[in-house]
């Protein structure tokens, strides 16, 4: 299965990635090569085979709904690119 330059743009948008114009063609080729390589999977007979998500088929364990983390606001704020009064700053979204 081969994907078009329009598809590449669409996946980039889904991935929140901006493609540099001069690299789009090469990236499209690479992705097409990868997809045709993984197409070998289609030949496998997987009828009646359950998909496998965890090697031991373990299920998600739920913990009791109690407070287990203390407030770390100041510590966490140290890594923020922009912060004011303990709030993360982003470009204006509401005019």
């Amino acid at each position: 299965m081969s994907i078009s330059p329009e598809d590449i743009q669409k996946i980039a948008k889904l991935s929140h990635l901006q493609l540099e114009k001069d690299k789009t063609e090469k990236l499209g080729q690479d992705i097409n090569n990868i997809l045709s390589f993984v197409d070998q999977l289609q030949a496998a007979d997987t009828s009646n085979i359950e998909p496998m998500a965890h090697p031991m088929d373990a299920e998600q364990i739920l913990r009791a709904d109690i407070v287990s983390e203390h407030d770390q606001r100041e510590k966490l704020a140290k890594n923020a690119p922009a912060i004011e009064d303990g709030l993360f700053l982003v470009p204006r979204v509401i005019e």
Partner: protein
Amino acid sequence: MFEKSIKELAEGLRQGEFSSQELTKAYLDRIDQYNGNLNAYITVAHEQALADARAADEKIAAGPANIWTGIPFAHKDIFCTEGLLTSCGSKMLSNFVPPYDATVATNFKQAGAVCLGKANMDEFAMGGSNENSFYGPAINPWSTDTSLVPGGSSGGSAVAVAARLAPAATGTDTGGSIRQPAAFCGLTGLKPTYGRVSRYGMVAFASSLDQGGPMARSAEDAAAMLQVMAGYDAKDSTSVKQAVPNYSMHLNQDLKGLRIGLPVEYFNKHLNAAMQKVLEDAIKLFEARGAVCKEISLPHTELAVPAYYVIAPAEASANLSRFDGVRYGYRCDDPQDLMDMYMRSRSEGFGTEVKRRIMVGAYALSAGYYDAYYRKAQQVRRLIKNDFMTAFETVDVILGPTTPSPAFGLGEKGDDPVQMYLEDIYTISANLAGLPALSAPAGTIDGLPVGMQLIGNYFDEARLLAIAHQFQAETNWHTQAPKTELTGL
């Protein structure tokens, strides 16, 4: 001092042969002298390491302490370390100082070990050559005329240990990222059973495949490391509640009657003749110790790499969606609006291979393609696991090569991702099945180390370590050091 095992270092510390401060200083001096050649470390924690060493010396003087107290080591830069830059080899996290420790980091701290610094790696653990690091590639210390790759993604960890810039290092393995660099650099590396080592605080790449493990100069040292790393962790919902054996105690368990499986899919016409010879010599040694070898089949071997390159990118695309330039990590300059900020922060913060995988993953998970790619790959994954389960009905362990060949040259694989992916052909199956697998030095090809791989049944790490340990008792491949200009050894 630089050739001593973890156990010997612990004894030296207790007998006052040297202090942890002297030992740590000696390693820091070597790092200062040779890291420029090798690029093994992204961050060196000079001051913290010496402070930790001082505390360890006091602890040892005060009475009985853990074997790791005062022993230096390195962390792959994927493990969160509180107050110490954790970049994951990416521009995206080049300013990230974690507010907390990964469970593995906590375990080493509690044991009293001294973290020397954070080791170089392929960006977000995606790669098999360390060439995808934002900080430039680590260099294989065995390189002479031309620069060779150390393997990846745990390339910096492998270089640090092989070049004697650390006695041991942590690594992580999603498709071979511990075993392949261990093989390329002449080390013993173990990917434990999925769920054996906590993933809490380990930057996520492909969550159903990622597993942390030891990289060391011997199986004995790897056993000592795994002892610290392994165990159930309530903070990782995929970690498994299973008692941790005493790995060091099992190192000499008898190999008589051990059933070794040799997969026809590994020992075929594609196997490099020199590699085959190396493995045959190892097999002879095991047979002399009373092991019995038997041909087996893993019929779905060829589908492992394709299944992996659907599952791993799909999970990566989901995991890496958290990097948006809002709460931590890289943010682009002068964002025009929210979408511009997301798009440019991610486009500028991620490298080429990471973006490629995010897009392949997004495609495989997108509407209309999910069944054809992701679901299909997860089904093939079960077929691969079933192959192993059938094999383990008649054998105890599976032996084969770790890599198709020894370390290749920097830039040699060009920029064709599929060629690079095929390097992982022998290692990926164990990740898909979640099985433990170990690589140990088994010989050399053209003067460069190569590894044999042992794949075990679930939670059979002790057996893998014992087999490697007894192999190492009769061979000296694992004690060979890279005596090159790069290392000054």
